[in-house]
């Protein structure tokens, strides 16, 4: 079972910038980023070669929601995933893509509160 994750340099920079802008910690930002990536219909490219950025502990990143993330990613892939596939491979891939998306969102929103409001607008309506 893998417990560590290393981001790319670009992702690390983005997370740091976003942390400065929003006051949210990198792990929270990473979770939001992953969620944003999951929303994208296109499949994610699982190949992340650059690992010179931040190093996360798995516990810090997913914490008590580890299975939820695995279920979400599995559901998104529509296949049963090995633990290895889920973490760090696909999680990392979603993190890379999600950070770009989040950065984009922030740049669009202009401030953290607007960012949050915009993100809230992205929540799908209805419940079951």
């Amino acid at each position, binding site marked *: 079972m893998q417990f560590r994750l290393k981001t790319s340099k670009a992702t690390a920079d983005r997370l740091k910038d976003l942390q400065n802008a929003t006051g949210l910690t990198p792990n929270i930002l990473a979770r939001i980023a992953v*969620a944003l990536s999951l929303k994208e219909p296109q499949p994610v490219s699982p190949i992340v070669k650059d690992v010179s950025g931040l190093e996360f502990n798995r516990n810090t990143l997913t914490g008590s929601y580890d299975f*939820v993330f695995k*279920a*979400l990613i*599995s559901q998104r892939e529509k296949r049963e995933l090995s633990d290895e596939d889920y973490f760090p491979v696909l999680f990392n891939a979603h993190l890379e893509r999600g950070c770009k998306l989040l950065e984009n969102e922030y740049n669009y929103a202009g401030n953290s509160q607007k960012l949050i409001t915009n993100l*809230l607008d992205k929540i799908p309506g209805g419940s*079951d």
Partner: protein
Amino acid sequence: MKFNRLRITNIGAFYGNFDFDLRTFNANQNVVLFGGKNGAGKTTILESIRLALFGPLAYGYKTESVPYFDKISSKLNSYAVKNRENKFQVILDLELVENLQRNVYVLRRSWQLERDTIKEDLEIICNQRILSSQEKDIFQTKLREETPPQLLELCLFDGEKVAQAISDEILSSYLQETAKVMFNLDLFENLETDLKTYLKQDAIQETLSSDQQKILELENTLQMLNKQRALIMQEQVEIETKIEENQSSLENSEKQFEIHGGLLKEQRDSLINQMNDIEQERRAMMDKNRDLISTLLPFALVKDILHDVNRQMENETKLEIIEGLKQMTQQSDFDHILQNLTRKGVILAQKETAAASEALYTEFLGLLSIESSEPIHRASYQQKAEIVSISNQVNQFDPKEISDNIKRNAKMIKTIQEIRQKINENDMTSELRDLLENINEAKNRNIALLHRKEQLNISRSDLEEQIQKVTNTYLKLKEKLIHSRKAENIFAITKRVLDVSKEFRRLQMQKKLQDVEIEAARMLQLLFRKELFVVRVFIHPETFQLKLFNSTNEEINKESLSAGEKQLLLLSTIWAMAHCSRRRLPFVFDTLLGRLDQTHKKSIIEHLIPRCGDQVIILSTDSEIDEEHYKLIQPAVVSTYTIEYNTQKSTIEVGKHFFTFSNPLEDNSHAISS
């Protein structure tokens, strides 16, 4: 004054102790005769008497100065000095009539040599009592006043100076200086001088008007100063009132400050509380927001996927159940079910059982069928529960709450800012501030007032000091004025006294001088060989110039007189003055008869000497008074001395005889009898 005894020790040529008895008895026996050749030391005797009497004054020095001691030094016996003897002195015994009482004085003036410097010591014994230094001073002053050296200068007659005296008009100044003493007019002159000094000291005449002016000025100054003081006092009172007013206003302001400040403080506190509450609420809200964002937002964002996960998991569960049912049930089970149901009469068609059970089984299985068949999650029961829980939470998650919270947060921040603004504004513009300003102003005013008060106090005390000073000056001046007013009278009186005194002096002098003129003329007539050559002697009462007139009232030029005649003239004049003053003065004639011819000598011995009072000391050479004249004078002689310089012994030998003319035994008998 009368000399009784003269003792000389180591003075001049007198080496050793010498003792001369100078006592005489009456006008008929009034001569002490000293005989000595030129240079024997006769003049030393004359000088010794002068020195004993007057000390420095004998040589015209007022104090014991260096020149005086130089003079003394030259008078000390050189042989004694060489022998380092340290006893140089002159002792003069004399009698004075004071307050109708005859007092005997012994004047002992001695000198001591100490390393080239001379010290003088004077001892005065009055009636065998040594006088204290104070009494000595008094005596000396009295002696000087009553018998000034000038007077004695005339009496201690130095014949060698006589010719000079007449031709150089020294006689006039001698006369001038001695006349007033002789005739007791110096008393008046002294009085006049004193009065003048008194007037000058008080400067009454000059200061009178200026003092009055000054008093007026001082009065003005005083008035002005008093006015100033009154102003200051008025201002002081005003300031006191102002200070009181200010104080009460200050107290009032402070009271109000307390009241208003208290109220305002409550307001302010409530605002701050409000602000704090809002801030707290905002913080809690934002924390909750952050919590929601941290935990649920990512999942809410993929809510749909989460639903899919949920459904997939349910399906997977169903599939599992179906699989289980398939494994547990077969078609025969449904045959049993149909047979049982037919037997119980629930259904009636017995013959179609087989076909019916097959159909029933197929339908039953169909009922359980689902679309998907491939499992994705293979979730455990716990994992399923987890997903359900998250799903429920996400479902309950209201994004509106967060956005509302964000909006509320913005509002709250604004509110807080407003409240803060309010507080600041309150702090800045409230009545409190006004009051504070009032208080500060009042305090400043108080300080300024107190400062002014202090200043006024200082000015006032200054002024009072000044007033005191001016008042003192004023009073003093006034007193002086009063005094001077009195003095004005005194001035007038003094002036009158002065005039009277002067007039009296003038008249007296004139009268006395007339007497002197008459007496001098008479004496001259007696003495002069050319009988009636001089009929009248005139002495000018102011210049004291002496003029002689002959029988035809023509002035005789004094210069035309012979040396001898000049001497006679001088002798006559001095005698006349002494005679007219009625003072008892001893006459000492030094080389009295030197220039006179036999006739004139004879007439002097016969006429002048008997008229010369109680004591005549004659210092004479053997040619002046020769044997013939000695016989003439002898009846009047009390004692005789012959002094002779002994070159071998370097001192003087004294014999109690007059040269070889007298019988020493006879002289001795005279001495003994006296």
